[in-house]
């Protein structure tokens, strides 16, 4: 032991010297000798330097700033042409310390132009033909091609004027627009301008956009009906930030949005029989709702279950025919980073108040809007799931600060989030008998998607991370929390973040680190949703523990509420608030493509030598006896061949009665003088070890996957008892590839399992067992357990089977 300690002491010294001389090179630091990797190297040289805007502790700095952009919009929806026309007055408040001579606006609808970078850079996602066989093009692809050829999409910017009506000059660059200011906008000043614009909405069925229209050609109404889910529908400001300046990156479709907070007043003019749902609060209920609807809304505030504002019957009646006149719905929303709305004469509308006693916003109206195609799946669950999500997320972050929380059913998309408004896809299936049913999987999907999208109200709609740059900051964090909320909804439903589910992705060869710009991420679902969600789950359950994690996470949420955090702020605050060094964790999980695979290679058992010959020699005799006999002698014996000694037992001497383990006084005397030579503390240590007679085991581990993680052991003893031993990840700090650990235990060990609960995403389970165990593959288990099992029976159908009585059985016989 002493010798070992000395060597590692030297190693540390050498390492310190080496790094000490290289610190000034920051990211250029390289280990250029040997194979040592500092998996615990602090992240500060990778993270941006803290400054007055963002502190080293991960909080907004004392001069933190962000811009404010207020919008006043008049918009008209033409149902027959599915065209949006709007006039927006934008007030831009420059809170930055910089002077701006131009502003950038986002023209997201331009992504749907046939000549957009998004379209031109999209690849042909189908196989090249084999030689001699025709190329294949799916009907879906054909429809999309034809649609893009026929349709006229993208913004028509009619004018941009200052408040006196003078035209301002601007330049469109793809999905961006640079607006040149008449005079530079200094720090603290604001500027107001008016944009007149229009665009044709896209068909959601064809392009699968984040917003668009859905057409119901088979409805009773002549010409069918439309459902509009309207988003990215007005030219809006690009964010100007302290860490990137203008975040003017072309919208390619994958990386989402980087936006500023501001106040919105929006007047939406639609056919007068439409119901409109929107971000914020309705301002003119008296003009657009009936007396009865207003009464129902009030009733809903304190109801136990959602109350229909528009009943299914009323909606069905409403969608049978159209109107020629229009109505204008007025909404206001304060301190939001975006605004979305939906409109249709098909909407059923239900609502229920969510109460937050003592919060700045005590009453939040949870509401759902859906056509009859949503059916009871929606009326039973949507609004309730919204409220459940608010309850869980608020517990982990802060009270919900907005007055409404809404879920709107648009069939062409999975789910999409906006402040106070989500669009969700699940639908029921129409049966031949006219009823609408849904499968268990669809039900789980509705619950899951509503939780997920409503969760986005917090991340990134309030904790306003930069989606275009870092998808994981909203999707990863939100996927982690949606599984928390999901498991609190129904523990029976399988949710996505079990550590073992991510293993296949993490061992795969073609992947990129989580810390990759959104549009460059390969396999976005695994990279930006599942892997970071799993990482956070492991951080909470295995590395930090719930108490420390929850405190730090809440601190992150509260500090960055209504502000714009970056990844480094998250990494820093999680450490600062918990007191746990996590650089190794974030480095491994977010900055590399390593995976977890810890192997228990060898186990040695050892016993303390007492130095007392009367004890040690007889022990050695036992060990010698236990050794297998020589095969040669064994075979001689089996042949019945007796040795000379066997045949001549009358001839014996001293050595026949005293083996090599016989103790003499010579050894006893030397033992006694050994004891006399010991210092008092040495004597005490030896006496104690001898009297305790413990078992000593050396465990040899190797880190096959590269990612350092705690080593969690389940040790099973000969007496049948089990013990869990958790060794912190720091065990790898001086030798990241191999470590040894000495276990001193009372009982004899018969079995050791690494990561017995599978909580670390360890890829290879077989090398987690000592002694080794052959782990059957899925197919082997499937074959041995028989097919199917209890899961996956059609109990809804089978439950209709009649129970056979004894009489029936007699008849059968």
């Amino acid at each position, binding site marked *: 032991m002493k010798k070992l300690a000395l060597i590692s002491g030297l190693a540390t010294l050498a390492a310190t010297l080496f790094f000490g001389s290289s610190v000034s090179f920051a990211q250029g630091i390289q280990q250029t000798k040997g194979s040592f990797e500092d998996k615990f190297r602090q992240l500060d040289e990778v993270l941006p330097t803290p400054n007055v805007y963002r502190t080293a502790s991960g909080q907004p700095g004392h001069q933190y700033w962000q811009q404010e952009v207020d919008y006043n919009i008049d918009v008209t929806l033409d149902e027959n042409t599915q065209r949006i026309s709007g006039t927006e007055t934008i007030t831009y408040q420059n809170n930055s310390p910089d002077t701006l001579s131009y502003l950038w606006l986002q023209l997201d609808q331009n992504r749907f132009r046939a000549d957009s970078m998004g379209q031109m850079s999209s690849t042909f996602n189908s*196989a090249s033909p084999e030689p001699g066989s025709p190329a294949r093009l799916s009907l879906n692809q054909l429809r999309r091609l034809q649609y893009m050829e026929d349709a006229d999409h993208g913004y028509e910017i009619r004018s941009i004027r200052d408040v006196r009506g003078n035209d301002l000059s601007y330049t469109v660059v793809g999905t961006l627009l640079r607006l040149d200011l008449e005079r530079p906008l200094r720090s603290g000043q604001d500027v107001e301008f008016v944009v007149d614009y229009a665009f044709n909405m896209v068909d959601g069925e064809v392009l*699968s956009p984040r917003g668009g229209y859905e057409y119901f050609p088979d409805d009773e109404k002549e010409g069918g009906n439309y459902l509009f889910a309207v988003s990215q529908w007005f030219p809006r400001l690009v964010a100007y930030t302290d860490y990137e300046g203008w975040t003017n990156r072309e919208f390619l479709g994958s990386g989402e949005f980087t936006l500023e907070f501001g106040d919105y007043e929006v007047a939406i003019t639609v056919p007068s029989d439409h119901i409109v749902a929107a971000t914020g609060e309705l301002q003119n209920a008296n003009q657009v709702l009936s007396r009865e609807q207003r009464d129902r809304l009030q009733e809903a505030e304190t109801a136990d279950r959602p109350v229909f504002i528009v009943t299914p019957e009323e909606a069905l009646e409403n969608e049978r025919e159209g109107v020629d006149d229009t109505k204008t719905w007025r909404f206001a929303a304060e301190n939001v980073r975006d605004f979305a709305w939906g409109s249709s004469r098909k909407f059923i509308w239900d609502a229920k108040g969510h109460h937050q006693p003592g919060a700045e916003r005590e009453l939040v109206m949870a509401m759902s809007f859906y056509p009859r195609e949503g059916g009871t799946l929606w009326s039973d669950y949507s609004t309730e799931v919204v409220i459940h999500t608010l309850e869980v997320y608020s517990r982990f972050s802060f009270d919900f600060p907005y007055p409404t929380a809404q879920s709107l059913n648009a069939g062409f998309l999975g789910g999409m989030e906006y402040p106070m408004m989500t669009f969700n896809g699940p639908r029921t299936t129409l049966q031949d008998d006219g009823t609408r049913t849904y499968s268990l999987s669809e039900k789980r999907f509705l619950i899951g998607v509503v939780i997920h999208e409503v969760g986005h109200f917090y991340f990134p709609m309030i904790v306003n991370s930069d989606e275009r740059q870092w998808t994981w900051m909203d999707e990863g964090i939100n996927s982690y929390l949606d599984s928390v909320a999901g498991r609190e909804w129904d523990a029976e439903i399988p949710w996505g973040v079990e550590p073992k589910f991510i293993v296949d992705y993490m061992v795969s060869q073609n992947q990129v680190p989580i810390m990759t710009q959104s549009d460059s991420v390969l396999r976005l679902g695994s990279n930006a949703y599942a892997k970071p969600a799993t990482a956070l789950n492991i951080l909470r359950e295995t590395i930090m523990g719930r108490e420390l994690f929850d405190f730090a996470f809440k601190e992150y949420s509260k500090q960055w509420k209504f502000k714009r955090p970056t990844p480094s702020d998250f990494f820093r605050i999680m450490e600062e608030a918990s007191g746990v060094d996590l650089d190794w964790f974030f480095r491994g999980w977010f900055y590399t493509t390593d995976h977890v695979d810890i192997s228990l290679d060898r186990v040695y058992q050892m016993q303390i030598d007492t130095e007392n010959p009367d004890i040690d020699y007889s022990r050695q005799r036992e060990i010698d006896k236990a050794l297998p006999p020589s095969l040669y002698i064994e075979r001689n014996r089996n042949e019945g061949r007796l040795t000379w000694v066997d045949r001549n037992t009358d001839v014996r001497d001293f050595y026949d009665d005293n083996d090599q383990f016989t103790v003499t006084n010579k050894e006893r005397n030397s033992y006694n003088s050994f004891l006399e030579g010991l210092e008092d503390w040495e004597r005490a240590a030896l006496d104690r070890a001898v009297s305790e007679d413990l078992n000593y085991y050396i465990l040899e581990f190797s880190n096959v996957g590269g990612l350092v993680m705690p080593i969690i052991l389940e040790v099973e003893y000969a007496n049948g008892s089990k013990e869990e031993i958790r060794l912190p990840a720091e065990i790898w700090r001086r030798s990241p590839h191999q470590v040894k650990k000495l276990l001193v235990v009372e009982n004899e060990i018969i079995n050791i399992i690494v990561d017995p609960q599978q909580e670390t995403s360890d890829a290879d389970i077989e090398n987690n067992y000592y002694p080794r165990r052959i782990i059957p593959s*899925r197919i082997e288990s499937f074959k041995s357990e028989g097919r199917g099992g209890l899961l996956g029976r059609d109990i809804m159908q089978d439950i209709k089977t009649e129970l056979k009585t004894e009489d029936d059985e007699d008849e059968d016989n």
Partner: protein
Amino acid sequence: MLLLVSAPSSFAHEQKTAVTRILFNPNTGNIEVMHRFLVHDAEHAAGVIFGAGQKLLESADSRALFGSYVVNRFSIATIDENQKSTELDLAYIGEEIDGQFLWVYQEAKIFDGMQALRVVNMALRDVWPDQANLVNIEKDGQIYSLSFIGSSESLLIEL
């Protein structure tokens, strides 16, 4: 957003990723093929292929239909040192639900001289062009990965 992708499809809310493990299992002497789909993805795909109303969690018939579809979109050819290619005769073992996943199993005997594999994995990729299939091949402790994304239909891996 819940994984939304810029490609044509009537259902845009699938995760649209599947994982296939191809395991050279020394314990059984078999090449074992284990396809993992999210049940919800698979159910919507089954609806597109076999008509609405497929219930993968509830109906063994729906699952069997989906399983037969998958094995018809998947193949492995082995290539020996003389560049001779032999299509593996993959036996269909079955399919099962495990939590949020639907698994489909196939296997074939390992034989000598497998220098390379040519894998075709079009499962769901003919339903949604943006479906991404990851294939991990595990042999002698090594992992080789194939990504069926974009225009790739048939991919070769040297073992």
